């Protein structure tokens, strides 16, 4: 069972996905059943795995690749954090996507690739060495491309081309770095505290170069500047895609990769001694500020959220780059919190687009009265992003701030405060307009759903994720909160 479970986890989305490819467009019921069944089974398996690990079980699966190299999956604490996040969010997004894409063409193709994406994300999470990570990372690129180009328009094709260019170049850099690292270190397995500290000092220059390549490769997906160019363009995809992938799977995979590199390839102490972490922290800080500033100028709602994502994902990187246990907690827990909050925001944006034809913020006046529940979820998530207690975002920022002080990096506090101010600056006007401004007499493209504000499938997911963002903040000190988990992970890395 201990080998089987990781593989089953992958299979739970891979097999439905492959079957869905062969379904006709009209086989709606079967497709929905497969999708939901896959998502539910995956969540169940994940919870089983968490329970098992909590009780001391170890789950791993290995496949030899070449003499000396193997594909390895292993459920450690960090992996589980990401896997749980992905599975929960996949479930809600599946519900949302089914509602969103009702009656649109090529749904079988969409859901097939959708399932492949999740398989790849789970694989990324569970990877136990850099080459397995690389494999699933590239798989993620390949399976997200069809989703971006799905609508088939010229705009979609161009956006997908840009996406491909960025991610494939990133992937090429990663490949180069991985092979190089293998020739220098002889192993690629993720080890707590890293496995490079013992390398002969004459190779240190090489290790610095490899680090740069690795960060660049992962940084493309994590949208660090100046590698972020693909993200706003990719917003042309349908809302479920933007939500899950660009708020959760793809960007988080990049950030996750950086966290793994810092903590389990180089080790924080070693990376710090090579002088690698300070430049990274500065870059992350620059991204945070840049993303927020660009967000201010966007009128298109999804684009504003995209730039917000660019900014927020760098919190995670900043957390690890500050090289302190508390900061690391902040960064790692933000992986979860940001995912929950951002996906809520994207779900709501999708609702506004689908129900009322709203794509721009300037069209959002008074929408709070027409779609109160959607905007309530949006409000909660937005306040969380700004960092209002007791929402989840506050917790992450608090730990980042305290961690920065503890690591003598006081300048980070300014960045955090500045970013919160900017977040407020680009979120509060939206909330004000939605709730307090009078609505325009006619919405751009209204659809009616009886006397509900919108379809259940579109309404429930954002409500659920918004509640989660509230809960993870409110109950952060209970035993199973993401925060406690992050504290546990950080302790593993930093305890002597």
């Amino acid at each position, binding site marked *: 069972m201990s080998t089987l479970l990781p593989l089953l986890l992958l299979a739970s989305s891979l097999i439905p996905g492959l079957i869905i*490819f062969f379904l006709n467009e009209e086989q709606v019921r079967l497709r929905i059943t497969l999708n939901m069944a896959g998502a539910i089974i995956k969540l169940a398996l994940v919870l089983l795995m968490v329970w098992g690990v909590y009780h001391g079980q170890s789950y791993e699966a290995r*496949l*030899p*690749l*070449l*003499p000396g*190299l193997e*594909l390895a999956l292993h459920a450690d604490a960090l992996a589980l954090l990401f896997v749980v996040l992905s599975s929960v969010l996949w479930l809600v997004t599946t519900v949302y996507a089914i509602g969103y894409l009702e009656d649109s063409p090529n749904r079988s193709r969409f859901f097939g690739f959708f399932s492949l994406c999740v398989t790849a994300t789970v694989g990324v999470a569970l990877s136990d060495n850099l*080459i397995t990570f*690389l*494999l699933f990372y*590239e*798989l993620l690129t*390949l399976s997200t*491309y*069809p989703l971006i*180009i*799905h*609508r*088939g*328009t*010229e705009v*979609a*094709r161009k956006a*997908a*081309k840009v996406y*491909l260019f960025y991610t*494939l*170049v990133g*992937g*090429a850099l990663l*490949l*180069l770095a991985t*092979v*190089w690292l*293998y*020739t220098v270190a002889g192993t690629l397995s993720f080890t707590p505290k890293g496995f490079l500290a013992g390398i002969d000092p004459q190779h240190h220059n090489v290790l610095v170069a490899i680090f740069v390549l690795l960060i660049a490769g992962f940084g493309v997906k994590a949208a660090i500047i100046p590698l972020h160019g693909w993200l706003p363009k990719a917003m042309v995809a349908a809302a479920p895609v933007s939500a899950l992938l660009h708020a959760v799977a793809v960007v988080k995979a990049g950030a996750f990769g950086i966290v793994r590199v810092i903590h389990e390839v180089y080790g924080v102490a070693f990376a710090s001694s090579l002088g690698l972490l300070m430049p990274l922290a500065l870059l992350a800080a620059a991204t945070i500020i840049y993303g927020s500033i660009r967000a201010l100028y966007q009128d298109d709602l999804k684009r504003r959220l995209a730039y917000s994502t660019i900014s927020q994902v760098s919190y995670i990187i900043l957390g690890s780059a500050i090289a302190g246990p508390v900061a690391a907690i902040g960064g790692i827990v933000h992986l979860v919190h940001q995912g929950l909050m951002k996906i809520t925001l994207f779900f709501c944006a999708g609702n506004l687009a689908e129900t009322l034809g709203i794509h721009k913020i300037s069209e959002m006046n008074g929408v709070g009265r027409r779609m109160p529940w959607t905007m309530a979820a949006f409000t909660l998530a937005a306040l969380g992003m700004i960092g209002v207690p007791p929402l989840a975002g506050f917790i992450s920022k608090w730990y980042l701030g305290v961690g920065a002080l503890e690591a003598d990096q006081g300048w980070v506090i300014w960045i955090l405060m500045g970013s919160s101010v900017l977040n407020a600056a680009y979120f509060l006007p939206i909330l004000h307009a939605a709730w307090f401004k009078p609505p325009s007499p006619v919405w751009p493209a209204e659809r009616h759903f009886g006397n509900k504000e919108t379809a259940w499938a579109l309404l429930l997911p954002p409500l659920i994720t918004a509640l989660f963002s509230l809960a993870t903040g409110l109950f952060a000190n209970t035993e199973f909160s993401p925060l406690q988990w992050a504290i546990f992970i950080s302790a593993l890395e930093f305890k002597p």
Partner: protein
Amino acid sequence: MLGLSAAIATAIASVALYLQLLDNGPLRYAVGGWGAPLGIELYADGLSVLMLLMSALVGLGVSLYALRYFKHDAQPAGFWPLWLMMWTGLNALFLASDIFNLYVTLELIGLSAVALVALAGNRHALSGAMRYLLVSLLASLCYLLGVVLLYHAFGTVDIQLLGMAMKASPASYAALGLMVGGLLLKSALFPFHFWLPPAHASAPTPVSALLSALVVKASFYLLLRLWFDVFPAANVDFGWLLGTLGALAILWGSVQALRQSRLKMLIAYSTVAQLGYLFIPFALLSPQAWQGGIYFVLSHALAKAAMFMAAGNILKFSGHDRITDLDRIAQRLPITMTAFCLAGVSLMGLPPSGGFIAKWLMLDAALTHQQWMWALVMIVGGLLAAAYVFKVVGYAFTKADVQDNKPAESIPALMEWAPLALAVTAILLGLNANYPMALLSIGNPLAGVSP
């Protein structure tokens, strides 16, 4: 049907030989009891059997495809005898143990290949075939002259004996130059690649698949044998030259592929580019690079055959293969497009696939000895391959302006599944390379490399 049974029988025989090799190590067999030097001896080691199995796999796939492809055309009469003759030549080449016999097999392969190209009957095919024939004959004659010189200098044509007797001398240099030159012509290494795109692109689809996948590999195999078994003692190191030409091939071929407006020409130029990868290990210092090279031969054979067959489906379905108009067709042939995409994954060297393993091994070899240029070329090559693969794939998703509702000729299932099977195999090759590696090491064929 007879042709297919012959194909299956050949495939089974190859597997049987493989199993025997595992038990007994390298095998040597004198045909009809006549030993060298007048008789013909056959020699099988890990590398030969790997090549045989590759031909068997690809050959089987293409045979199944061809069964359906030629059903409606007037060409079938010529295909099967010629293809089986070519296969015979290929197998004989992989098992040959003296360089004159290799000349004969080279000619056999070359002549049947030319005739196969000409089967298509149209002017492009005929002129492509003619050019191919002239080049092929020129190349073989150069090779033969080299054989002659070697025989004169050392009194034998047996590969093993030659290897032992070899020493540096004007005769061996001349022979080396002639033979390598001829084989490079046949392997279409830049700048000797000019004959390949017209021939491969205008041939009937199963023929294109076989040519790109197998025939060009045959001359490459020969080069390897010469490099490792015959010429090491002559102490000439021009590996860097071959590697440089290989790098140029990768870059030039990929760029040309991007400029094509017809699918089959794009795939043919892709072959030119991918063949460049095969020559990079000559310039790398690590023996591990050769494992990568051979793995590349394997994965490319499978992936390229799959790709050509997919292109053939598209061509048959719609009557043309213009890339920009693919969207009206590609969406109606999902299995074909999947085969194409999977084959593309291997060509790009993305995991998981045989192409990735090959690339990994070669990159590892390059970086271990700090040979940056080669590593960089391979990385850039991968990105360029991605560019031309996705150029095609992108059109599989876009919305056509005019929905082409003309009832197109439907493609029989076998013709869609054969490329898919080969493409999937290329992917699977990426998932446990230990077995092929182990096979490769039987008989230590790659041991003669000079560091």
